[in-house]
């Protein structure tokens, strides 16, 4: 038992270190900035003010995006299934949890737990069904199909009167212990836990015999079939797991913002994880996490900045899209295999170099 622990620590020490850092993060920021990790009390309520809680929100957003990108990578990076409809699972789960909390009249805690269970289950089944009817389509045709389904949901909820159409609705029945405006730190640890779970679950799955088949399908589906794999089954497993993980990210997103609206189903929630995966390193475990972290930190730190040239003041938010596009193009040119892929390649070259020297 102890030898296994030591073995694990030696193999994964960097991950353990990062996890420890993330666990301590709200308190580290609090100590550094003299703010409280719980916000400031105002009467019998809390106000989410101060650097620690602000950073907690940024980090929760990163965890959500990382989970979404990791789930996308499971399909695209490891199994080779390109989907343009990932936002469907993300957004739909937001609606499911929102409807459970606000429209059923159940006790808040029960509604929350039921909602989470339902969001994950329904999206898993939906992923399976979408896969069943469309995974026989190859490559870009499957991608277009998923895009169409996601856009249908986007348009539907944009006009659905019950959920207040394109305005959406706010959550007022989140249990207080998980309320991002009261106890943000709980949500921080829940999101962190889900992120850690997703990372290690995907790693375990990909290193299993099943994951080996995923990679075989990505590499050469015809060949995988001819050596005896029913590749459709394995692609269905991948899309089902990926859609359940995306659903959990959607639940967290709604709990963080306490707002449900059709923008959750927008194409942006498909494109973001796609770009994060590509920039971070497609088909690697850490790539999507690095991509999500990098892009979101960029987003939160640069977007609100202003540039003063002489007497003209430029707001970065005005040309944010343009800047982001330029960053993507640059990143793809500098890191053609993503940050992680380029890092591995450089390290291999270095090892070859030191071996030959």
């Amino acid at each position, binding site marked *: 038992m102890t030898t296994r622990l030591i073995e694990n620590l030696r193999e994964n020490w960097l991950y353990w270190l990062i996890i420890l850092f993330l666990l301590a993060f709200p308190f580290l920021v609090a100590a550094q900035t003299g703010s409280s990790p719980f916000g400031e009390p105002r009467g019998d309520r809390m106000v989410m003010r101060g650097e620690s809680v602000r950073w907690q929100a940024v980090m929760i957003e990163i965890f959500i995006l990382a989970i979404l990108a990791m789930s996308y990578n499971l399909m695209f990076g490891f199994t080779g299934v390109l989907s343009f409809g990932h936002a469907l699972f993300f957004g739909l789960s937001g609606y499911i949890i929102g409807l459970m909390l606000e429209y059923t009249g159940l006790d808040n805690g029960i509604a929350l737990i039921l909602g989470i269970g339902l969001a994950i289950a329904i999206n898993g089944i939906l992923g399976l069904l979408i896969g069943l009817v469309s995974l026989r389509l190859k490559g870009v045709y499957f991608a277009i199909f998923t895009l169409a389904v996601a856009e249908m949901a986007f348009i539907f909820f944009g006009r659905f009167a019950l959920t207040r159409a394109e305005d959406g609705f706010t959550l007022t029945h989140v249990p207080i212990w998980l309320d991002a405006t009261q106890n943000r730190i709980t949500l921080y640890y829940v999101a962190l836990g889900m992120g850690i779970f997703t990372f290690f679950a995907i790693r375990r799955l990909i290193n299993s015999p*099943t994951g080996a088949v995923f990679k075989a399908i990505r*590499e050469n589906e015809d060949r995988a079939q001819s050596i005896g794999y029913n590749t459709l089954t394995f692609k269905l497993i991948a899309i089902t797991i990926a859609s359940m993980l995306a659903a959990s990210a959607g639940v967290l997103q709604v709990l963080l913002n306490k707002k449900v609206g059709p923008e959750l189903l927008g194409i942006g929630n498909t494109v973001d994880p796609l770009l994060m995966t590509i920039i971070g390193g497609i088909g690697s475990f850490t790539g999507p996490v690095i991509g999500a972290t990098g892009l979101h930190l960029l987003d939160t730190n640069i977007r609100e900045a202003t540039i003063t040239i002489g007497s003209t003041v430029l707001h970065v938010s005005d040309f944010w899209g343009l800047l982001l596009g330029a960053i993507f193009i640059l990143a793809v040119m500098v890191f053609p295999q993503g940050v992680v892929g380029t890092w591995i390649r450089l390290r291999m070259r270095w090892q070859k170099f030191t071996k030959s020297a």
Partner: protein
Amino acid sequence: MTILEARGLRKEFGGLVAVDEVNLTIQRGTTHAIIGPNGAGKTTFFNLLTGKYKPTRGTVIYKGQDITQLPVYRRSHLGIGRSFQITNIFPNLTLLENVRLASQALSGDNFRFLQRTSLLKKHLDRAVQVLAIVGLTDVYAFANTLPHGGKRKLELAILLAADPELLLLDEPTAGMASEQVPELIETIRKIQREGNKTVVLVEHNMNVVMNISDQITVMHLGRVLAEGTPSAIASDKTVQSVYLGELYDLPGKS
């Protein structure tokens, strides 16, 4: 004893009849070659046997069972393995992983989500063993770094890992340097003899076919033109006129 039989196989692509009422019987434990000039329909016929195409008419019978409509992946579970004319491997995986996957495919270990692949030793052992048979030793190299001849060997290793009874080989020496061909043929022959396997190969290279086959079927314009032992085929006048004549006159064609 018959292991594989094609009855009245016909395949049309639009108005084109690529394979026209072909009957063929393959005996267990033999090496049977299908040859023919370009466009003779041999690759289409081959794909009807492997299940890649479904025939317009006719049936394929394997060990007494009608497998005409069986999907590709199910056929390998019955002991039919195939190789490809265009090298068809998993390029960004190691040689070991390429072959290990083939060994795992028929084992029932595919749905062990929580098991670590590296702990499934039997498939690794099998992979190393099979790679040694075809003469590949650097098992941790990535498949796309192999030279062409090495990829052909890897292709064969992937096929062997599942230990099929019937091997369908689509131009196993395609694109190989001619000095590498004898080695590969020797390997195929060894596999066939030692494992008492049945080999069906589609070939362009006449030398390969003459040395290795027990039976040869010559196809021309989608039909069977002649069938017999290598010596009988070599002396067949019609075959000479449509096929051997053309090819033997072209040095370096193989």
